[in-house]
């Protein structure tokens, strides 16, 4: 809440309830904007208080509220219960601020924002007024401008334009991916059951293409997920609406660079805790390329989002919670040599050391680790006639729907004992046999069971049958082979 009072004494413009240099900057900005609009307040003593004093207020978002409070105090504007969220420029123009959407969630009162933020504000509040200048706000709220002033902006600039729309970043079309039958199937299963996926293969084998094809298989975001994604983008100052001003419902794809700090990946940073890549990926895919290059400490922090679906960032004044529910996809080389074209030539100690670096904090997070191979030249030149994304997506969507119907969430998040109930005895026998034969560990059994459930869903089968179980064992064997130390 912002309140203003005019008092006796030497001319001053004091801003209370805001710390340090921010106070001086805000008061200077507002004073200049008021002057540009025709209201010189330099000769008066003004006191403006941002209450409550104990809560931290940062950034320029309160500028407009301060200016309106002053205008009310000097009688230019009538009192009212609107909410004001915009920065003012020295010439009286309004500027957009970050975090409009999350800031206005659940607000009933009318809202006044910079015109560039109007579309975003309308996602959260019912009554929104977008204005380009302080003068326009005055006019629209029933105040009178000084003679000779108009409410039109003096400079037409980028500030009055709407925020840029989200780029149309299309996922990779699966029919363009040649060969890679094992990896394609793993991608399909990962998308259908939310199973985390590890792509190991030599450079240039198409790991990134595979990762980027996954968002093309996922269902569109529902209202809650889409708003969450938009809120995160708002806080980061990124575009969040489509060309038509609608919410972006495409599942996001975040691919932070391996040199990213823990704060960039998970969220944080000094001052206001900004959402990290895990939150930008919420509802979609988080892709960690060059897995080996990531610092183990940074990756350790993924534990919370992977287990809870959110990140909590604690600061002295408050703890912020950001959404972070994503499908984890990682990629890397399976061994130090690449592997080389004529087969892996690494010595076993080098391989063992590499593997233990690779496993680290994410060791048990992956359900699938298909072999991604170099595509032989003749196949590269062949026409792209593999199954297209649209067709795979149909299966994935119906599989997801079946899982939500049955458990309320994707198969990867369901406890193994629960999944077991829907398995035919023959399927359980297959898994038990594989475990007895030493091909599956106890953990492998549980993981394979969940993957088998997804295979059954993809086939439209209510029960898990032995064919699904065998396939799941195959995927598990592959994963354990990729992870296994040299014999």
């Amino acid at each position, binding site marked *: 809440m912002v309140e203003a009072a005019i008092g006796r004494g030497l001319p001053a413009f004091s801003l209370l309830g805001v710390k340090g240099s921010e106070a001086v900057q805000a008061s200077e900005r507002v004073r200049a904007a008021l002057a540009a609009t025709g209201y010189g307040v330099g000769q008066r003593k003004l006191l403006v208080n941002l209450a409550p004093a104990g809560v931290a207020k940062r950034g320029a978002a309160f500028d407009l509220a301060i200016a309106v409070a002053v205008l009310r105090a000097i009688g230019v504007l009538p009192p009212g219960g609107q909410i004001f969220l915009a920065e003012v420029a020295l010439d009286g123009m309004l500027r957009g601020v970050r975090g409009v959407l999350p800031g206005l969630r659940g607000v009933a009162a009318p809202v006044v924002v910079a015109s560039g933020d109007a579309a975003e504000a309308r996602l959260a509040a019912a009554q929104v007024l977008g204005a380009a200048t302080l003068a326009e706000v005055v006019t629209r709220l029933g105040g009178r401008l000084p003679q000779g002033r108009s409410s039109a902006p003096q400079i037409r600039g980028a500030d009055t334009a709407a925020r840029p729309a989200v780029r149309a970043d299309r996922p990779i079309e699966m029919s363009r991916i040649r060969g890679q*039958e*094992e990896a394609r199937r793993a991608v399909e299963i990962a998308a259908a059951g939310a199973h985390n996926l590890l792509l190991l293969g030599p450079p240039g084998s198409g790991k990134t293409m595979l990762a980027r094809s996954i968002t093309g298989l996922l269902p569109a975001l529902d209202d809650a997920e889409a708003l969450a994604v938009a809120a995160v983008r708002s806080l980061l100052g990124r575009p969040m609406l489509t060309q038509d001003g609608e919410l972006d419902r495409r599942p996001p794809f975040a691919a932070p660079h391996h040199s990213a700090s823990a704060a960039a990946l998970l969220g944080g940073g000094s001052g206001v805790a900004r959402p990290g890549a895990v939150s930008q990926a919420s509802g979609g895919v988080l892709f960690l390329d060059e897995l080996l290059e990531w610092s183990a400490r940074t990756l350790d922090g993924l534990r919370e989002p992977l287990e809870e679906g959110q990140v909590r960032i604690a600061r002295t004044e408050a703890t912020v919670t950001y959404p972070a529910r994503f499908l984890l996809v990682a990629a890397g080389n399976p061994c130090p040599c690449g592997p080389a074209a004529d*087969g892996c030539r690494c*010595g076993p100690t080098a391989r063992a050391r590499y593997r233990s670096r690779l496993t680290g904090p994410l060791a048990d997070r992956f359900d699938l680790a298909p072999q991604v191979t170099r595509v032989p030249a003749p196949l590269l030149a062949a026409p792209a006639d593999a199954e297209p994304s649209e067709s795979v997506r149909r299966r994935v969507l119906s599989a997801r729907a079946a899982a939500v119907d049955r458990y309320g969430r994707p198969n990867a998040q369901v406890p193994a004992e629960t999944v077991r109930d829907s398995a035919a005895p023959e399927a359980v026998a297959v898994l038990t046999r594989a475990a007895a034969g030493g091909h599956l560990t106890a953990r492998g059994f549980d993981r394979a069971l969940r993957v088998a459930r997804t295979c059954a869903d993809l086939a439209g089968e209510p029960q898990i049958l032995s064919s699904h179980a065998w*396939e799941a064992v195959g995927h598990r*064997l592959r994963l354990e*082979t990729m992870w296994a130390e040299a014999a």
Partner: protein
Amino acid sequence: MTDAAPRGVLHDRVRRLLGAGVGPRDLARARATMGAEAPPGDIVEALERTTPLLRDGPAPSTGGLIVIGDPSFPHLLAEAWSAGGPLWLRHRGPPAALQQQTVAVVGSRRATLDGIEIASRVAAGLGRVGVTIVSGMARGIDQAAHRGCLAGGGATVAVLGTGAGVDYPAGSGPLRQQILQTGAILSEHADDAGIAHPSQFLARNRIIAGLAQVLVVIDAGRRSGALNSAAWAADMGRTVAAVPASPSTTAAAGSLALLRDGAVLVRDATDVLELLPDRRPTPAADAVHAPPPPPDPLHRRLLGLLGARPTTISALTAHLSCDGATTLAAVAELQDRGFVQMVRDGVVATPR
């Protein structure tokens, strides 16, 4: 312990020298000074002259010691003396293993999967008919040969480049234990001797070559220890054989070079047996105990596509004209039944 076994005249003197700390380097130096032709007795004398702290009485040692001149010192190895063979060997394991007909199998530490499979198969075939396989316990071909021979029911001898008490290569403990049940672990070095100098391995190669009538090289690189072993064998008048490989296999460039220089080309255990004197090649050596083929036609077709080199799931799927899911399920079942093995680069048929 060989205390009860008959000994040659040099045995106790060498035992005392070893107790005083004499090692293979001292032996090499003495032989360099006195010439390769100098008989063992002269060398022992020279060592006694130059070794301080010589105590009376036999020195303690763990494990057996065999010295040239002992009846239990392998005959072929004694013949190799003038070509640089050893004076003594510390050994563990039943001594009988050293008396059998012996073939050496050597090759690269960084062998191809194909080479490892061949080494295993050849060693198994030879072990099955009672031939002892000697090799160096190194990773790659050496260990594949040791394991293959054991799998075939034969005895194998490992000659180490370090002391027998040292765990080198790392993790070879279990294999040693298996070897010791029917075969032997040999070393010129004291039990706790580690790798003081890489030439220890070249020196150990001469013992491997000296123990065998035939030395088989598999997957030798262009400048590898296996070629060094082959050179020793040639100097000792033994037969050098090599398994061929494709010229595109850089891992086997050395093997091909040997073949050009006159080594005998061998493909399997039968070919090797032909090179042993007084040996008739027996079909049993390479018998493939084929289990009944799997009933499912898709499984049979899949098996038919596999070879020693790994085939990827993608390639199998393409050739079988099915989908990735079907292929994975088939491979899982076949692995469960022991027909195939999923490996790093794809799927292989298990060697039989």
